Structures are given as structure tokens and as C-alpha cells.
């Protein structure tokens, strides 16, 4: 009986002890788990879950286990702001997400005011142009990717004219503005500038416009499902000009949905599980084993975000929220130091990233990397 009493007292002491709270570090992810951004947000969340499980299994960060919480934004700016505020009120060590640029724009001031690092999945160029020292990307921005693409179109395709098909949301419009500017720099004329809608089902009219423009190449910048629909429509209209795109167009989901229509599509890929990089391939395998489907670039971004936090915390040797952002800004994270970062990554002062990327082609229903492109910076 006495053993039970002592045991019970010890258990109560342990439960009530502040040491237990010290054993954990809370990370809150705020992402698009419903609404228009659900596909991207769910991949991002799964990438985070995979990284957290791995890190916890290996003893956590500086001996502390990660406690991960996910909040849905409904892809709505007002709800995103509520969720990010809640995350900060609940003492998150850093804010993870969101992925879509609009919700990021609505919430980044709160993390900035609280002096907490916010690691986001957004690629729109304007996010890191607002002098916010607490925002960090987890992938290349559109302004980093588009010069590489424009050069490839000029040098490899020898295109003089290009038709640009884009989705009229913050992602597509940002990409369209960036590629048009870069195409102009390399002397390529935009033969047709075609705006489409998010969630658009029928792309026959757009494919006919592209066909009639008869440009040397087609540049497609749409979300996943729309990319697949456009590719099918383009093939039905008999468009035989090279079709190029950026990361999304060559994603696993697009290839799966478009079927044979995706074959022959080329483009620039920032992050891909098919890249000839051991870390990325390994990540792709683990992700498939855990979630039973292939991760897109958003899954890799979420995974990277957690490892960026781990690396910076171990670098500063303490859990200091402001210090985390200070450590990340201007950092160079090498795979040799932190394998979870997957590729050597430079975090620029404004929160942008610089690292290698890839030129890829879809062959027989699979993405194949045809060239590795060096980082933009020295």
C-alpha cells in the first residue's frame, strides 16, 4: 500500500512539475486545410508531421520533444489572422505557414509585431519585399525561378515568341508578372497573354487561343488541377509546340491527373522528390510510406520548415524566439550539418532562399531531371 502511495505521489509530482513542460517545445502550423488551398496546405502539413515524427524519434530539439498543433485557415485572410494570433497567444516557438500568399499577407504583421519567426510556403514575389525581418520562405521565390526559365526558353528552345497561360490569383498573377519581365529581358515576345480562373473546368477556349497565337513555346502557370485540365485540352487541340512550366506543372498530382497529356512537358522545378538528390529521394520514399501518396513541393517545404527551425535552434543553443529569426537571417544551412534540410540552402537577409534547382521533363508519366541549375547567388 505504501508503495502505491509513494508511486502515486511521485506520479503527481512528475505531472505537476514544470520540468515536463520544459521537455516540450510547441510549434503551431497555420495552413490551408480547407477551402481553395486545401491541396497545398495538406501537403505542407503532412511534410511538417513527417519532420516532427523524425525529430522526436531522435530525441527532439536540444532534448525537447516537439508538440505540433495544426490550425486551419479555411484559405481566408480573416481566419488566418485569427489562427496566427491564437498560435502566438498559445506560445508557439515559431509560426509555420500559411502557404497561399493572400493569407500570408493578412497574418505576417502579427508575427512581426510579436518578433516571432514565420516560415511560410508562399512563392509570390512581394512577400519578402516589405522589410519584414521575421518572414522566411521555404522555397525559391518566383523572382528567383523565372530568370532561370526565361534563359532556358531563350537558349534551349530558341523561342522568339511565347504564349503565357496563367491563373488569375495571387500565385498566378505574381508568376505571370515575373515571367513576362524576364522574357522581355532575354528578347522573347509574349504572343498571347491568357488569364484563366481558379477552379476553371473547361480550357478548350484557352487552348484554341494558344493554338491560334502559334508561338514558339507555351508557358503554363496554373494550380495543380487546372494545369492537368489545360494539358488535356492542349493535346485535344493538337498543340505540338513545347509546353513549359514551373514546379507545379511538373508535379506528381498534375502528371497523375493529366495522364499521357503530361508527357513531353518541360520546366523548372524548385523542389521535387524525383530530383537526383539523395535527401529529396529519401524524403519522397518516407513520405509515400507514411501517407501513401507522392508528395508535391509543398510537402518538401513543410518538412524543410521544421528542419530550418531545428538547425537554427541548435545553432543558437537555446529556445529564443527572436534569436531564432536572427539566426536564420543570412544563414547558410548545409546538408552536412543538418541532413533534414535536404539541399544546401542560403537564407537571404530578406527571408528569400537561394539554392540549386532543376530542369525537368515528363517522360512516360514520370518526372525526369535533365539538368541541375546552380544557385543564383555566388
Amino acid at each position, binding site marked *: 500500500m505504501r508503495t502505491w502511495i509513494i508511486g502515486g505521489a511521485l506520479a503527481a509530482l512528475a505531472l505537476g512539475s514544470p520540468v515536463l513542460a520544459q521537455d516540450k517545445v510547441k510549434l503551431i502550423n497555420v495552413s490551408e486545410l480547407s477551402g481553395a488551398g486545401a491541396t497545398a496546405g495538406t501537403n505542407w502539413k503532412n511534410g511538417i508531421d513527417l519532420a516532427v515524427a523524425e525529430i522526436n524519434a531522435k530525441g527532439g530539439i536540444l532534448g525537447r520533444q516537439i508538440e505540433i498543433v495544426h490550425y486551419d485557415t479555411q484559405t481566408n*485572410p*480573416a481566419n488566418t489572422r485569427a489562427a496566427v494570433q491564437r498560435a502566438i497567444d498559445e506560445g508557439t516557438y515559431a509560426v509555420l505557414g500559411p502557404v497561399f500568399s493572400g493569407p500570408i499577407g*493578412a497574418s505576417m504583421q502579427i508575427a512581426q509585431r510579436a518578433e516571432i519567426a514565420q516560415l511560410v510556403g508562399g512563392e509570390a514575389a512581394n512577400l519578402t519585399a516589405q522589410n519584414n525581418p521575421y518572414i522566411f520562405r521555404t522555397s525559391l521565390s518566383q523572382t528567383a525561378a523565372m530568370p532561370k526559365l526565361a534563359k532556358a526558353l531563350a537558349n534551349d528552345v530558341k523561342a522568339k515568341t511565347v504564349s503565357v497561360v496563367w491563373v488569375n490569383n495571387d500565385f498566378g*498573377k505574381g508568376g505571370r508578372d515575373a515571367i513576362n519581365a524576364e522574357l522581355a529581358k532575354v528578347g522573347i515576345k509574349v504572343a498571347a497573354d491568357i488569364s484563366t480562373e481558379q477552379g476553371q473546368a473547361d480550357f478548350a477556349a484557352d487552348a484554341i487561343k494558344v493554338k491560334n497565337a502559334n508561338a514558339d513555346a507555351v508557358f503554363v502557370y496554373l494550380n495543380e488541377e487546372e494545369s492537368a485540365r489545360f494539358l488535356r485540352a492542349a493535346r485535344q487541340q493538337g498543340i505540338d509546340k513545347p509546353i513549359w512550366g514551373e514546379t507545379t506543372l511538373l508535379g506528381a498530382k498534375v502528371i497523375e491527373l493529366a495522364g499521357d497529356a503530361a508527357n513531353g512537358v518541360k520546366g523548372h522545378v524548385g523542389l521535387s522528390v524525383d530530383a537526383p538528390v539523395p535527401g529529396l529521394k529519401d524524403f519522397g520514399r518516407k513520405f509515400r510510406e507514411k501517407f501513401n501518396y507522392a508528395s508535391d513541393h509543398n510537402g518538401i517545404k513543410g518538412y524543410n520548415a521544421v528542419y530550418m527551425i531545428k538547425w537554427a535552434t541548435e545553432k543558437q543553443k537555446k529556445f529564443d524566439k527572436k534569436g531564432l529569426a536572427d539566426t536564420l537571417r543570412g544563414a547558410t544551412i548545409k546538408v552536412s550539418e543538418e541532413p533534414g534540410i535536404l539541399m544546401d540552402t542560403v537564407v537571404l537577409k530578406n527571408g528569400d532562399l537561394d539554392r540549386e534547382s532543376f530542369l525537368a521533363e515528363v517522360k512516360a508519366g514520370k518526372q525526369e531531371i535533365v539538368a541541375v541549375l546552380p544557385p543564383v547567388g555566388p
Partner: protein
Amino acid sequence: MNARTDFAAVGQGAPRRALSRIDPALVSIVLAAAILWFAPVGMGRYGTYVLTLWLVMAIAVMGLNLTLGVAGLKSLAQAAFMGIGAYTVGILTAKAGMSWYPAFAIATLATFAMGIVVGFPALRVRAHYLAFVTLAFTSLVWLVLRNEEWLTGGTFGLSNIPRPTLFGARLDDALSFHRFVVVVTMILTLAIWWLLRSPWGRAFLALRENPVRAASLGVDVRAYTLLAFAIGSAYGGMAGALYAPLVEFIDPSPFAISASFFLLLMVVAGGSGYLFGPFVGALLGVVLPEWLRFTGGLYLIIFAAIVLLLLIACPKGVLGLAEMLWARAARLVRRTP
């Protein structure tokens, strides 16, 4: 429940009687404002933000409640008016550097004027045909907000929208801005309370119940239809004018067609035509999903199920159900010897 203020009941008392006793609705409004003034203490910034968002949405729903619940005009344009109000304030304060107060006045007047313009079709078409016309208007406004990038920021939206100042003091922190919104909401609720007790309110009701009979009794159907639309729209605009500095960022997505449907749901779920229906409706639409977050990934399914069951159980909304239960209880008490 004594704040049960079916608009049909409002204004039934003779002026002398209204003066001789204090209206329970009026007491409720002032009391609720006092509670909401202190409510966020200890709630944290998140709780305060959600409370403020609830009040802002309640203002928009109040406007739609006037158009739909009182005057019986089925409008799906309320999100568009909210968008016009939000963008007017966003552009004038963030881009042109104007103070919030004149920007708010311009947003109110602009949406009032737009309400009159959109109200014209309501003179010719009714019921779901009117809903279609207003739906088209919402789409049109959304397209302008998205495509006119030089003015509205397009899909990238407008960032860093400043919050108002009051007598030189900044209202940047969550609690100060919440209290500011509480005062504005109280004023706007009192205005609606007064309006519905006035002959105008009774004319709106007549319009809803039987436009032909209303016309035969000398109610200017054209003027009152336009007025109902314009006032309802102006409330949407005022809600937008508060939404922009609350979120400090606006893009076209919260003002799309789906948002109009959601506002309509709040009117119906809260109790269409009741003075406090918009507050209950907005509570269901804004606060309930936040409360349900503890259920994890299932929270939106549970939310949808609750709303569905609620509307099956009480088609007249929460306040309709409450009124019915109140009446039954009163009957029971009367029967008891």
C-alpha cells in the same frame, strides 16, 4: 428573452406607453455593449480579435437583415457592399493617407448610393429573380476588385491598412480597437432599433408582408424599397470599413459570392427579422467554428452538421425557436392554476 424583439412587435406600443416604460431591447443593447466592453479582459489577443470580428460581421448581417428579414428583399449582394466599404477605406487610408473617419463616411455614402442603384431592379423583380440580379452584381464587384490592380492591388490585395486614432490616441492594440468597434456597433444597433420603431420600420414591414396592400395604404413602395436596400447596403459598407483596419489586409477573396451566401446563412440561422438575430447568426458563423477547433480536423464537418440540424429544427432561426419556446412556457404558466 425579454429582449425578444420581433420587428412585428416593435412599434406596436403607443408613443406615450413607449415613453412611460423602458424598452427591454434598448436596455439589452446598452447592457450588451457594457459587457462586451469588458469581455476581452483576460481573453488574450486571439479571443479579442474573434470577438471584434464577430461584431463586424454582425453589422453586415444587420444590414442584410433589414433588406431581407424586414423588407423581404432577397439580396445576395451584401458581401459586395462589404467589399466596397473595405476597399474604399483601404485605398483612402493606406494609399491616400486619409484619416479613417472621413474614409468611413465616404464608404457609408458610397455604399448607400450603390444600394439605391442596385435597388432599382428590386422594383421590377422579386424573390429569386432579385437574388440572381444581386448575385451578378456581387460577381461584377469581385471582378473589379481583382482585375483593377492599379487601384485595388488586384489579387495581391492591400497591406498595412492603418487603424483609426481617437483624440490622438492610436487604436493599434487589440483591446482598444475592440472597444472602438463595440461603440460603433452599439450606435449602429441603436440606429436600427430606432428605425424599426419609426414609421419607416412599419413601412418596411408592410412591404415584406404585402406590397400591394402597403401601396393601397399610401406607402410609397418605390421609395421604401430603395431605402431598405440603401440602408442595408450602407451597413454592409460600414462593416467593410471596420473589417479593413481589423484585419489590416484585404484581398478580393472575402467578398466573393460564397461570402454573400454565408452572410445570408447568418441572417436565417440567427432568426430573420429579429433585432438580435444578426448577433446570434454571426455568433454561429464566426465564433462557433473557432470554438469547434478543439475537435481538430473534423471541426468544419461538425459546424456544418450543427447548422444543418439547427435549420431543420428551427427554420425561423435560433431566435424563432427561442420565441416559440417562450410562448409555450408562457402558455403553460397561464394554464397553471
